[in-house]
């Protein structure tokens, strides 16, 4: 297993040659993610949003991998637990909070549950689906299109340990092996698929080894070590970009929270295991390194945390204050051009609800 920083932040491998500005962006994306999590949990516990997906403990996987991509030409086909990938590339917390509330500015127009993000800028981020593993063959198709046009973009697709049991994982890996499409498969092995441990997903000795069956090299990294993740993903991205084909990377990490805000991991994970992994925290470890290297100065880390706590609080307040999407959005985007039967259903819907005095105006909007 590749490791550059041990759990205490000691350097045990050669750090990748990467601009300190990028290193700081990784750290900031990880802290921003944890603060987003914290705010999302508060919102869910106070009944303001219905759902969130905690990222605590896995932030290094997402941030390290995202940093290896070129936003001008690469795509992300993400796992749902990958907020740091978006934040690293400069997606605005406001856009994410708008999705949490499903308000009128949500890119998904309030149609999806919270955290099912979709972005085209600043990086192409495949709209998230709830069924698992489906994004894997989609990612391969995106990459095959690049390959056919002779472009040098790469697609990073991520998924959890549980998703390796899906047909999507198998089909996607198999197609990529055969076509040598420029894809990086990133398995975020956080050791639990909701409550099911890895032993119930596979009898393989690792997830990385599964690459062998598809003719795809497999690499295992310490997923709580952001530099190791970056290093492994960067090498895989470079290889794919240069026509060397796909790579499967297993990043071993641990989900420190529930699967979702509706899940209580204490029902199936021993407290001692939680404590053991808390001591391997990816942010604490990275901070030790950055302070030792002089990339962060004393007080910087606390300032960054406070900065993002304030950013997330404000973004959530702004999102909460926005109106709901209009009734029209139930019908639009089903097809590019709305068929007659949907126009009829839309007109009926708007007329019906605007006559019921439920804060719906005659245009089907929800004015504040």
């Amino acid at each position: 297993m590749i490791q550059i920083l041990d759990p205490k932040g000691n350097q045990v491998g050669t750090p990748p040659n990467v601009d300190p500005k990028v290193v700081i962006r990784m750290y900031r994306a990880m802290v921003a993610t944890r603060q987003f999590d914290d705010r999302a949990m508060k919102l869910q516990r106070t009944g303001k949003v219905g759902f969130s997906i905690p990222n605590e403990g896995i932030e290094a996987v997402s941030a390290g991998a995202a940093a290896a991509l070129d936003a001008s030409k690469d795509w992300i086909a993400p796992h749902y637990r990958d907020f740091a990938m978006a934040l690293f590339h400069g997606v605005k917390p406001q856009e994410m909070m708008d999705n949490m509330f499903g308000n009128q500015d949500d890119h998904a127009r309030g149609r999806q549950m919270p955290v099912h993000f979709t972005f085209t800028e600043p990086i192409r981020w495949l709209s998230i689906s709830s069924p698992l593993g489906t994004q894997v063959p989609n990612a391969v198709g995106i990459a095959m299109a690049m390959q056919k046009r002779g472009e040098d973009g790469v697609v990073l697709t991520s998924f959890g340990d549980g998703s390796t049991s899906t047909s999507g994982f198998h089909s996607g890996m198999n197609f990529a092996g055969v076509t040598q499409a420029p894809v990086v498969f990133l398995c975020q092995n956080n050791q639990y698929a909701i409550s099911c441990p890895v032993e119930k997903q596979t009898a393989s000795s690792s997830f990385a080894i599964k690459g062998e069956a598809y003719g795809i090299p497999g690499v295992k990294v310490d997923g709580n070590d952001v530099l190791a993740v970056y290093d492994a993903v960067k090498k895989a991205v470079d290889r794919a970009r240069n026509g060397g084909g796909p790579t499967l990377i297993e990043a071993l990490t641990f989900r420190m929270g529930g699967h979702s805000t509706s899940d209580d991991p204490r029902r199936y994970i021993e407290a001692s295991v939680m404590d053991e992994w808390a001591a391997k925290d990816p942010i604490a470890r990275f901070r030790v390194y950055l302070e030792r290297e002089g990339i962060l100065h004393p007080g910087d880390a606390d300032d960054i945390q406070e900065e993002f706590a304030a950013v997330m609080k404000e973004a959530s307040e702004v999102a909460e204050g926005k109106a709901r999407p209009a009734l029209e959005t139930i019908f639009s985007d089903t097809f590019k051009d709305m068929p007659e039967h949907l126009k009829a259903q839309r007109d009926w819907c708007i007329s019906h609800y605007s006559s019921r005095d439920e804060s719906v105006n005659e245009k089907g909007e929800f004015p504040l």
Partner: protein
Amino acid sequence: MTTATKTKMTLVQAVNDSLKCAMRADDSVLVLGEDVGPKGGVFLATDGLTAEFGEERCFDTPLSEDGIIGVGIGMAMNGMKPVCEIQFQDFIFPAFDQIVSEAAKMRYRSGGQYTVPMVIRTPYGGGIRGGLYHSQSGEAYFCHTPGLKVVVPSNPYDAKGLLAAAIADPDPVLFLEPKALYRSSKMEVPDEEYIIPLSKVATVIDGDELVVFCYGAMVPVCTKAAERVKESRGASIRVVDLRTLMPLDEEAVLDAIRECGRVVTVHEAPRFCGFGAEISALAAEHAIEYLEAPVKRVTGFDTPFPNTLEHYYMPDTRRVVDAIEEALDF
């Protein structure tokens, strides 16, 4: 004006011709599936494509339906126009999740940021001694999926023009090809590319005493039935080929119901929740005052599709004639 040349061809040749026209006109059109490459497909629908356009544009894939559709979706999202072949519609179900959860919902769930302009071609239907797994008509599953268009041609001319429309369409289209009609007859088809708009029915035979709604391989069956009833009792039977099941040309369907007053629907698929039920409901909701008889449904049975006895399962001319006469005599 140049004189348009035409060639006599079968339905499967028209599919092939339509693919070639689309691939010549647009480099982003790709064909993928099992055995679609040098072999040209098990029904030869993709014959000659790899030879003309190369393996980059018409290629064999692993034997993986969810993979074919899954990568097709990715290619469609990233600027290509994939035409995916599923060898038999009966084999499409491993890809059901990709079709229903991903292709059909991508535009909606991304607020229009991502779209899937993809065509899924697949032969459907019975009459070829294919038994349980080479005979099914699964259109109802897909018509019940918002975001997906469902098209069924019934003759070579329509097959070419409707497939061209499906390829040009900005949304995912399931193109169900009646394999029983693949080589059953030939028809003059223009050599040039042309488009038959989706969501437009075709009146195959005009009439005003009763309307038969049908599609795909049931169209020739219904046409023969209408002719037989006309011969036997001089009744004026209209036959409407629906051609696009979703989005349905509801206005045209309702006009035909109102003008004729008697309705028979015909499909090979099982009756329960079949497409005939939707037509029947449209008639009941919007045109009941015009109805002079109960809507009759002629369909396959609510069983799996048999092999030896398939011709007792599928609607044939006699069954359609009987339904027409029952409605006329009500």
